[in-house]
């Protein structure tokens, strides 16, 4: 029926694992070799994924059972449907160019070998999530992705904030995973299987699906894709090297949650979908506004990512998982470009990350600037650029389906996007240089600019257009009808919103933030608003919980255990029993008096005699 691509998928999945092992065992000191090996493997995978994407439509399946625990079957297999192919291509393509970027960016880093081993392990993990055919396998690679993220965020482990950030990311992810595994257990209990295809059949046959199943599985999505209330780790994760932020925390790992939700969308009850939609829209608006209060360029982009993830979540919540996937694909390209551009800028300014100290880089780093601007325009959903196809479709879908509150939030999000984008452009590229480093900035080497050009100029600009024309309609079947249904109208609400945001937001921000030099205009004009947006409210809540509640409870229980169980129970029983016995016998066993021993012998033999004779 459909050609069997399982061997192709074997290569795609296990090449990076092999590369990671090889680097870890043999190439830790030989950084350059490790870098090129890892990059080569990444490009090979991208090529294979492209082959897969352009092939004829039809699902590929493969499955092997690893072991059985009682009646539970632990299986490993692939389910390559249209969504999987798209995601495989997006992930591997973006990742390949980020690998290339890293070769240049990490050139002077002595721990390069470890870094590239981490990137390869990450590739293995994320591709595993994409191809998985059952819930348990997804969970396995989910956790592995969390581990790769931990390892890569902690790359600069001699800095306290990097160590703390990696720990936070892992733990918050694990909180999400707690809900995830409970959801998996519930699926197994209700339907007796964990296989996606079988679950789809069960769900179709069942009248209603309990909301709890979707709610628990959603916890994994909340953790991995940094949705409320588990969003607190993403901004701290910027402590990792910039390519890590680009690859993991913008393009792929955080999108894995969206991909998973799309995969299991048939298990999500309406209440769950409503929650996702509302919290996603809210997050989109709020995060976009918070991005206005960050001076670190990477943190600002992190909030931007949070906003877009909210939009993707919203799309799923509205019942259009295919739109969410498309936005995820487009977002991967332009966000990766933005982060890589930020990396290039940081590299050019000699590791200065504060936007207020940059400025005037348009002339000094023209190629970086051009790609950054192109990606920014895509981010702001300028018509006919890649971002526009997907983002406006979602906003239109909200209006179309009658969810006006969500429409309002998404519009606010669109406005906020243009605002912070304009701010970023103004502070970084336009105006005059605000520091020594910025005035001596220079363009980055080809290993860094080539990916920018490819991802930025080519894909961010033309991505949507390319997607709909060059590739055979078959592979993108799930997306086309959704796109067609929401056709382009000049008077459509989303278009109006988009154009208004562009004019007011982008141009307004460009003008506004140029008014004060060397400082943030909003902070100068309205410090309270700035503080409101800048303060990390959820973080404060979590910090309070850990310090005040958790620490005290655990210390109290430890104290109780020592006092009650160890002190009272053990000592008293352990000391008490011999004390009582000793009192009863006058401690005569222990005094070394032979007469006492003789007495006890007599008593004992009398007892024995009674026992033997009388019974």
């Amino acid at each position, binding site marked *: 029926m459909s050609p069997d691509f399982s061997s192709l998928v074997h290569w795609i999945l296990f090449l990076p694992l092999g590369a990671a092992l090889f680097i870890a065992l043999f190439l830790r000191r030989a950084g350059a070799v490790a870098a090129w090996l890892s990059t080569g493997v990444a490009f090979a995978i991208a090529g294979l994924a492209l082959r897969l994407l352009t092939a004829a439509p039809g699902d590929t399946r493969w499955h092997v059972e*690893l*072991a*059985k*625990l*009682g*009646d*539970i079957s*632990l299986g490993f297999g692939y389910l390559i449907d249209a969504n999987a192919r798209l995601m495989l291509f997006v992930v591997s393509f973006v990742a390949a160019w980020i690998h290339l970027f890293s070769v240049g960016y990490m050139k002077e880093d002595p721990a390069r070998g470890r870094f590239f081993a981490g990137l390869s392990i990450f590739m293995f993990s994320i591709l595993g999530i994409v191809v998985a055919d059952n819930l*348990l396998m997804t*969970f*396995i*690679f989910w*956790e*592995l992705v969390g*581990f790769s993220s*931990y390892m890569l965020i*902690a790359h600069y*482990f*001699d*800095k*306290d904030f*990097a*160590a*703390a950030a*990696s*720990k936070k990311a*892992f*733990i918050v992810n*694990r*909180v999400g*995973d*707690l809900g995830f*595994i*409970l959801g*998996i*257990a*519930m699926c*197994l*209990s209700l339907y007796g299987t964990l296989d996606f295809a079988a679950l789809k059949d069960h769900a179709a046959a069942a009248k209603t699906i309990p909301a*709890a199943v979707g709610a628990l599985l959603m916890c994994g999505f909340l953790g991995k894709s940094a949705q409320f209330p588990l969003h607190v780790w993403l901004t701290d994760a910027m402590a990792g090297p910039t390519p890590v932020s680009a690859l993991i925390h913008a393009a792929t790992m955080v999108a894995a949650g969206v991909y998973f939700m799309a995969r299991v969308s048939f298990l999500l009850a309406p209440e769950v979908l409503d929650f996702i939609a509302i919290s996603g829209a809210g997050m989109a608006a709020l995060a976009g506004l918070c991005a206005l209060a960050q001076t670190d360029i990477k943190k600002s982009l992190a909030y931007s990512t949070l906003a877009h993830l909210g939009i993707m979540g919203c799309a799923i919540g509205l019942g259009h998982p295919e739109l969410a996937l498309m936005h995820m694909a487009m977002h991967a390209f332009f966000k990766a470009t933005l982060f890589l551009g930020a990396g290039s800028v940081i590299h050019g300014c000699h590791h200065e990350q504060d936007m207020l100290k940059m400025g005037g880089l348009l002339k000094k780093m023209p190629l970086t600037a051009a790609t950054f601007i192109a990606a920014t325009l895509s981010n702001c959903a300028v018509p006919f650029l890649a971002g526009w196809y997907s983002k406006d479709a979602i906003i239109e879908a909200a209006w179309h389906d009658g969810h006006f509150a969500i429409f309002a939030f998404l519009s606010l999000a669109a406005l906020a996007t243009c605002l912070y984008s304009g701010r970023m452009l103004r502070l970084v590229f336009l105006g005059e240089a605000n520091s020594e480093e910025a005035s001596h900035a220079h363009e980055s080497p080809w290993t860094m600019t080539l990916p920018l050009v490819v991802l930025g100029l080519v894909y961010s600009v033309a991505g949507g257009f390319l997607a709909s024309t060059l590739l055979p309609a078959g592979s993108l079947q799930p997306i086309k009808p959704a796109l067609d249904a929401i056709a382009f109208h000049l008077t459509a609400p989303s278009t109006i919103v988009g154009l208004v945001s562009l004019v007011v937001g982008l141009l307004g921000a460009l003008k506004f933030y140029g008014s004060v030099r060397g400082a943030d205009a909003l902070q100068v004009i309205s410090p309270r608003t700035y503080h409101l947006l800048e303060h990390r409210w959820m973080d404060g809540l979590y910090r309070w919980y850990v310090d005040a509640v*958790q*620490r005290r*409870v*655990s*210390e109290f*229980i*430890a104290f109780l*255990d020592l006092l009650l*169980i*160890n002190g009272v*129970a*053990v000592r008293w029983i*352990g000391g008490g029993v011999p004390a009582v016995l000793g009192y009863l016998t006058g401690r005569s066993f222990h005094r070394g008096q032979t007469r006492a021993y003789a007495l006890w012998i007599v008593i004992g033999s009398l007892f024995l005699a009674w026992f033997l004779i009388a019974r």
Partner: protein
Amino acid sequence: MDTFPATLLALTVTAPILVGLILLAGRDLPRSFTSGFAFGGFAIPAVLGPWLLVLWSDPATAPQQFESVGFWGFGFALNGLGAPLLAMTSLVGLAAGIKALNQEVEGRNTYLGLILFMLGGTLGVFGTNHLVGFYFFHEFALIPTFILTLFWGGEGRRPAAMQMAIYLTAGAMASLAGILIAIDVAGVPYGEATFVKVADGLQNAQHIPVAVGALVLFGLGTLASLFPFHSWAAPGYSAAPTPVSMLHAGALKKFGLYGIILLGLSSLDITGGSLGTWFLWFAVANVVLVGLICLAQRDLKQLLSWSSVAHMGPIFLGIWVCGVTGQADGLDAAAFLMVAHGLSCAALFLLANAVRARAGTYRLDELGGLAARTPVLAAFFIAATMASIGLPGFGNFWGEVGVFLALRAQPLWLQAVVASTVVISAVYALRAVAATFFGPASEALEKRWAVAPFGDLGWAERAAAGVLLAASLTIGFVPSLVTKSVNPVAAGVTTYSQHNTKAPAKAAPAKAAQPAQR
């Protein structure tokens, strides 16, 4: 040819004991000779143990191949549950042996000899199917630990050794009483009291006193650090010399569980009635309360000791849920976790000792920044930590997730409470890693480095930790190595347990399952 596996099994158990005897007797032998000899004593089981597991190809015929008849029914025999535990013990023993050989101690021969006795005793526990033999080897392995802790231990060894000795002996006495009464009630002569015969006998018994189940559960549970009988564990492991902690937490703890499964679960209805309720709550306390206690620890070795107590929680729950629901998956997962936990726990104790050797302290607030100086140690330690918190790829994952999945029919709040170990263990484990390895170097470390720069993990330490981690990765990637041999035993035990507690309708499968389980 038929007796080849049986011979291997006998050799696996007796080799360390014989070598230990010779070492204890020959105090004046030259050091190089004793080192080589002792290494042989550790290495032989390490080779034979996994080999025996691999030879276990057909679960239906395998148990008979591994039996050897001795005197008074006291021969060696291997069953599907014991085989992976035997393999795990032999590997942990090898790692402990390498560590012990690397240590500079007084009375080295006695030290090594006693550790070899520990190893041989533990191997004997898993290598016999006779109840009295089980108890005999159990004490044989346990008594050297008291002596070793008392004379060769670290800080606080006197009170810790005394507490361990009295506590564990009390537990052992309770379990012995339970075992003897069980054999008596089953009507089996002491010379023939194998697990199967006793289980069969108890199936047909008129009335089993409730106290027997309680004695066996709490007596053996003391050894497996079931809450609230766990107080001996943390000070005991902290004070014991490292090879002893490795073997104790890794292997000896598991024979309490082994006995609970093969005697308690199969025949004594430990999960029914009020005893079952106590069991459940104690197991949950292991997960939650002891987990919280771990969060409050400030000392690395104490943390590891408490966490080894906490990790017993999911294992107990797997056993409990098997008895309650009559499905073998919980028991399979619990057995898997027993094997995997032994490997990861031993590796962590070994590597924590390596940290102490370099930084001079176990206190978390005095450690820091070690990864920059000793990257290989950091890598191994993080790998072992990831294994113990259940990262996929290592064996612990299958065990933990298996238990969570086995609990699927239980109330959601119970599942959530049990699964919270996923978060709690991550918190304290990663906190320990960050405090020890990440961040800038602490003052204490700087001072030590200035006085005597220390090196990264040596080859011996790498070999020891590497063996354990490689084994964990192997069963993580190929779980069928363990499940193939455990599943039939678990199925058999489950059917036996159902007969005792549920309607007679389940008795029919019990008869059918008998030929499969021995």
